[in-house]
């Protein structure tokens, strides 16, 4: 549905995007993840034709944005980071304007009513946009992107500034839209992306650092298991025993909980389970284990690892 090929964008000497390529299939919900300033908005602005790339091409449903801008743009619904609203208009008037601007050929009144119901702004239809709260404005922006039921939706941080209840609503909405539309949406909140998307692209410093299915990403990158351990006994003795266990990569005392007890964190490779060894080691030095928990690295850890890695490599 969307094909992005070797996209590069330069601002003077600064490379905002460096050779980005990816494709999105019909009906897929793609999460665009990256720290602030990584190039998420730039990529989205290029796909929607707001700015142009220095080199590279974007094809949406077979038509190229530079060769065939009108046809391509009519296939995309775009919600930019700051919703493009006119504060002095009412919600209904604004949606009517956007309807005309996008040259939508559906029955106007019914379609606008339907969209307002979908994003739940029917109650606000005759209010001025400048009097709406941030959450409602965001929804009006959302409604605008949905006008004309475009096959592709591009949403730039649609949940920023919303309260938790609204965030959950928007996520649900995105997921339900994913059935009929192809969706790209960006965020720097990981839990949001992993909860909503089929696939994640992590972008950092203008480059793609990871591109995989949501569940694969956590599998592939979690080659390290983490063990958190609360045990009694002298820290030096405990750490000394942990060090001896094969498979341990990293170990440290996180903090002392009281004079006898401390919390430790141990990282070990995925292919061996060290919990039994830890247990017998602690028995040997007579340090009772109060708590032991092993788990996969969280998506957050991975994200930090991925994005920090490129920063080091880039500089």
């Amino acid at each position, binding site marked *: 549905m969307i094909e992005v090929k070797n996209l590069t964008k330069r601002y003077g000497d600064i490379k905002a995007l460096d050779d980005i390529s990816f494709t999105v299939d019909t009906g897929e919900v793609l999460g665009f993840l990256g720290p602030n300033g990584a190039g998420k908005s730039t990529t989205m602005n290029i796909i929607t034709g*707001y*700015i142009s790339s220095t080199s590279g091409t974007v094809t949406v449903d077979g038509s190229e944005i530079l060769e065939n801008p009108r046809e391509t*743009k009519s296939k995309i619904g775009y919600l930019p980071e700051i919703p*493009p609203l*006119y504060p002095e*208009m009412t919600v209904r008037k604004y949606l009517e304007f956007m309807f005309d*601007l996008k040259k939508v050929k559906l029955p106007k009144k019914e379609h606008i009513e339907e969209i307002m119901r979908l994003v739940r702004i029917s109650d606000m239809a005759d209010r001025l946009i400048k009097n709406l709260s941030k959450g409602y404005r965001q929804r009006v922006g959302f409604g605008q992107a949905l006008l004309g039921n475009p096959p592709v939706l591009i949403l730039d941080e649609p949940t920023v500034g919303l309260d938790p209840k609204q965030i959950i609503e928007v996520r649900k909405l995105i997921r339900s839209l994913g059935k009929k539309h192809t969706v790209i949406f960006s965020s720097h909140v990981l839990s949001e992306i992993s909860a909503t998307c089929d696939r994640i692209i992590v972008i950092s410093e203008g480059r793609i650092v990871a591109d995989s299915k949501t569940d694969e990403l956590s599998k592939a990158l979690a080659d390290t298991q983490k063990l958190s351990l609360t045990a009694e006994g002298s820290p030096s003795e405990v750490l000394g025993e942990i060090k001896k266990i094969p498979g341990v990569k990293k170990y440290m005392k996180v903090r002392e909980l009281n004079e006898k007890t401390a919390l430790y964190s141990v990282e070990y490779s995925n292919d061996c389970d060290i919990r039994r060894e830890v247990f017998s080691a602690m028995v040997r030095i007579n340090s009772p284990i109060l708590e032991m928990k092993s788990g996969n690295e969280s998506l957050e850890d991975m994200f930090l690892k991925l994005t920090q890695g490129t920063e080091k490599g880039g500089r």
Partner: protein
Amino acid sequence: MGAILKREMSAYFSSATAYVVLAVFFFFSGMFFNFYVFAQNSTSLTYVFSSMFYIIMFIIPIITMKSFAEEKKQKSDQALLTSPCSLTEIVLGKFLAAFIMFALCNVIFLVYAVIISFFAQPQWSVILCTLLGTLFLGGSMIAINVFISVMTESQVVAAVLGMGVGLLISMMSYFVSNIGIQWISTALEKISFMNYYANFTYGILSITDVIFFLSVTALFLFFTVRALEKRRWS
């Protein structure tokens, strides 16, 4: 184009802009009408029109200052530029809205002509010709000011710059008579808006004047489209 035109018009009338512009225009034209027609016992609107030249130079930047500067500032230009409308359509929509706003101001001259007709036979041909000239002049000034608006994010900068340019254009004939170097003053004379506008106020409809204003309009609208295009590529 239609959508943008409609939105711009409703924006003028839902804010104070339209009413302030109309009030200022009507006030000054009424004052000049009083001075040059009633006080002088004349039926000619020529002096009213030529005095309005300066008012027009100040009023047009007020009409156009919002057009692109505001959009850029509140980022609503993202909606326009990612919609399936060409840049030309966007620019023409904005231009036409400002032009219609300006044309509405000029309707008052027809009222004055009708008032004159109660007392004497007005020179309809001269009045209509001048009105046409005013619209041509306004069109080219609007194009220049729309171009200024696209260059900045601040409405105030757009308005002040537009007024500066208007003043410069109004004083062109003054420069012409004060610059000694022959070729510069000749060149300035050729682009002096007042020269071309004056012919209309005498009731002379010459193709040269019409083409002059039309080409200035087209040129600056073209510049505006290019400036929008350039923003995308920078």
